[in-house]
């Protein structure tokens, strides 16, 4: 069974030259090259719910969203609060 594919295009049409594939919460997602975590969250989390991010199992602090560029093959985890025991 293939996973659904999301296509998130963060670049303007004129500079949309290359795309990359990354995993976002386990879903293969096509992104424009040089997409940052900040840009990804603008699409993934438009309601600005409280989230935290890890890239390739490494924590990405909020202050680094703008400077953290997603590369081909990266795995992003975006988590939010749930009930827990």
């Amino acid at each position, binding site marked *: 069974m293939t996973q659904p594919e999301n296509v998130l295009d963060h670049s303007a049409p004129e500079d949309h030259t290359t795309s990359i594939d990354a995993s976002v919460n386990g879903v293969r997602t096509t992104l424009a090259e040089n997409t940052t975590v900040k840009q990804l969250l603008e699409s993934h989390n438009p309601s600005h719910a409280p989230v935290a991010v890890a890239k390739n199992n490494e924590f990405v602090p909020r202050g680094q969203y703008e400077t953290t560029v997603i590369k081909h093959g990266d795995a992003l985890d975006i988590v939010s*609060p*749930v009930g827990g025991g």
Partner: protein
Amino acid sequence: MTLATHTELALYDLSFKSRFLLGTALYSSPQSMLEAIEASACNIVTLGLRRQNPANRDGQDIWEAIQKTGCHLLPNTAGCKSAKEAITLANMSREIFDTAWIKLEVIGDDYTLQPDPFALVEAAEELVKQGFKVLPYCTDDLILCHKLVDVGCKVLMPWGAPIGTGQGLLNPYQLRTLRERLPNIPLIVDAGLGAPSQAAEAMEMGYDGILLNTAVAKAQNPAAMARAFALAIESGRLAYQAGLMVKRQTASASTPTVGQPFWHQPCNRN
């Protein structure tokens, strides 16, 4: 003589009136959870982090409801299976919840959800170095507990039984040993309790608190069960402080025997 009750639960640098820590999962609705939290009078609630699905507001509704309670937050690392995963999730948790407190879980077996003791110590040591206040969910193994204390854990949370089983205190001997050998470490029985009497039993042993979720959330009336556990925890604590009598092997009459009418010779039917 005054009743030695209502002493506060001191964990790290904070004190809490209630010795009951309640989980926020498995309720039928956020409202049911809020009613249970109120009935429990708990001051600390646990919660978790999961992958966000923007199309599903469930997580956000629970989070907004939890914030209304004003309870101290104890986020967990539930589901992590390595020290690395737990350390990463703890950092994500600290950023979202703005607390250095972490209920550290590193699971070593899917069937029993038994903690991996080696990864647990490894994760605890690193998180303490990073400034976390670590409350590890651990087994009742004495040496593991000593190791966790050695790396800087100032609270331990041994299981009563595997998570969600409701089996109660499966190893009272070991839990009693932990209490005796770690007299200055706050000990909280975490997981496996199904009935208030089991919580009272742990508190009578001298445990400092009880953390549970399923027994309340899955009760037919969660709020009533939360209240029942709260009463049992207070009762057990008071009994511990009052000092339980020493068990005897033979009967001992409570009514004075001196002056008893109709005097008889001792009757031994053997």
